[in-house]
């Protein structure tokens, strides 16, 4: 009873926050719930099947895909808007008391708390790479946090882990129930040394495999994604279709199908549901500014920039606007710009904006990418005119713009 009153009370404040234009209300609701009842997340997780999704890149998209796949057969809740900290998780769990399943995105550093509170049935570990080094610390440190937390999982919990990522493998490999997935991702910008012993990690097979003299090596994957076909441990073959463009999106679609199958959804239903999703929380959504129609893409660290540049340059229009900020959520250090090769942009019409447009311009100058600096999206649209363009934005720039995409 006390919990119901708490949630009702928190929802009222959340609605007030939304109505007065202070925000979506998600954070306010969750904060009040946790303030009044610190055990609320544990209580709300009881008798529910919980799936936690975390990693550096692809959390929001994969969570949404998993939600859609699960919702075909079971009433499911999720934190749809990427609110993946304590309050966001609390709000998501409080929203539909009849839902028996929850697909919850959690921040990399929130995973240990989420495991303790929700006692999950499945943990999906996407990848681990450098991101916001000033806030999230170096990759190895995060991997150690995961490793410690995963050792406390409920006995029957399974992990869906990425065999291509040495840090995910190191964090998860001690657990008895790991399902290894490989999308054939090559190499890893941060895994030059072995996570176990610190010696130089040997990459072989064109970056498809790795091993160390200490015995650490890439595990044999149970599920393999190859050219859009997902092969399962029993030889099952599933076609993975993604309306969200890009190689990373197809891999996330495959992860969502596997997750849903683990929870008991039929592979066909899961694959169908996943193939229907075309935009997640503003990603790849259309945004009309002036006469220009922008397609909005999120990019936030070297790994995601690489994916986004490849996706934009193969599927996007000729013109592209880059918008980079360096607020707390973006990471205040922009050095990572120099870890990205922008040459896929060569030959396109490139405009640059955002609070750190001078950093981007300096980087593009050295990368020999002709470009023009503009003050904001409006000025960009005046330059571009009545055309389509891609708008690749860093975290805070993206979320400001994505609000206009959401309907």
């Amino acid at each position: 009873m006390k919990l119901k009153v708490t949630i009702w009370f928190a929802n009222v404040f959340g609605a007030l926050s939304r109505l007065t234009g202070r925000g979506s209300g998600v954070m306010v609701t969750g904060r009040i719930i946790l303030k009044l009842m610190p055990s609320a997340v544990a209580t709300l997780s009881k008798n529910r099947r919980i799936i936690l999704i975390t990693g550096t890149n692809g959390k929001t998209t994969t969570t949404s895909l998993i939600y859609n796949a699960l919702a075909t057969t079971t009433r499911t809740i999720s934190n749809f808007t990427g609110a993946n900290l304590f309050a966001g998780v609390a709000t998501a769990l409080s929203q539909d008391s009849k839902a028996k399943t929850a697909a919850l995105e959690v921040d990399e550093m929130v995973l240990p708390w989420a495991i303790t509170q929700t006692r999950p049935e499945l943990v999906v570990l996407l990848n681990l790479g450098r991101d916001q080094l000033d806030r999230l610390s170096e990759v190895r440190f995060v991997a150690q946090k995961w490793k410690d937390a995963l050792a406390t999982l409920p006995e029957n919990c399974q992990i869906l882990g990425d065999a291509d990522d040495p840090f995910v493998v190191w964090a998860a490999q001690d657990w008895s129930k790991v399902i290894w997935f490989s999308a054939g991702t090559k190499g890893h910008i941060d895994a030059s040394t072995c996570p176990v012993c610190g010696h130089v990690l040997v990459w072989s097979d064109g970056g498809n495999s790795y091993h160390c003299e200490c015995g650490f090596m890439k595990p044999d994957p149970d599920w393999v994604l190859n050219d859009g076909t997902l092969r399962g441990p029993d030889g099952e073959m599933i076609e993975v279709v993604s309306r969200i463009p890009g190689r990373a999106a197809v891999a996330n679609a495959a992860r969502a199908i596997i997750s849903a199958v683990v929870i008991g959804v039929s592979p066909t239903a899961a694959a169908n549901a996943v193939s229907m999703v075309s935009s997640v929380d503003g990603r790849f959504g259309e945004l009309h500014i002036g006469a220009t129609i922008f397609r909005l893409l999120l990019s936030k660290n070297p790994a995601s920039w690489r994916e986004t540049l490849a996706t934009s340059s193969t599927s996007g229009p000729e013109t592209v606007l880059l918008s980079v900020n360096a607020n707390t959520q973006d990471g205040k250090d922009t050095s990572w710009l120099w870890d990205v090769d922008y040459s896929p942009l060569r030959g396109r019409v490139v405009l640059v904006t955002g609070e750190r447009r001078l950093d981007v311009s300096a980087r593009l100058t050295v990368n020999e990418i002709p470009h023009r600096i503009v003050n904001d999206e409006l000025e960009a649209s005046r330059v571009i005119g009545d055309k389509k363009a891609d708008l690749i934005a860093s975290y805070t720039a993206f979320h400001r713009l994505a609000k206009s995409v959401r309907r």
Partner: protein
Amino acid sequence: MTFTIVHLLPELLGTYGDRGNVDILSWRLKQREFEHEVIIVAVGDKIPTKADLYLLGGGEDDAQIAAMEILARKDGMKKALESGAHIFAVCAGFQILGMNFPASGGRIVPGLELIAVETISAELRSVGEVISEPTIPIATLTGFENHGGQTRFLEELQPLGRVSHGVGNGTGSGVEGLITDQIVATYMHGPALARNPELADWILERKLGAMSPISTSIFDQLHDERVRAVRH
């Protein structure tokens, strides 16, 4: 004569975009049509001992130790200095050049002993914008520091700058980085030479003599904006 820049072990010492420093030096030489080459030395490659300028970037603990072990072999860096080479080192690279530096679990790892500094673990990580007034005749220095070590001079040495914002080398010294006849070391990421074009040219000119100015102003604009952003 071809000017040779060696980028040392980028896969180990390249966590903070410091590889940009190599690209910037190369770009600045290219603008002046100065003949040069960049040699990237990966793990397992032989380290050339006759190059003009060696660059060392920042890295995580294990990678720093792995890099240290490779660089210590056959006294390669010492020999390079003896044949007149210069070194530009950032963060973990700075620490490696000293007498010793800390590793995980409270271990102390011996460094290359090329400069009389030692690094100890700080209680708090130094993270944020750093501004310093240089001890050489160039513009104010701007960078982004992110390091858990504090580096102290074991004898009288010339710092690169006197800190007006941020931490720098730490230990209450109020100084940032280090300059010797052949070495420039710093905690500035950003990367340092993107934000500080005058430092980039100072490093090149020390080896090559005076160079013509470059017409592109974006690096100066970036420099001024970063200095202003911190001061206001």
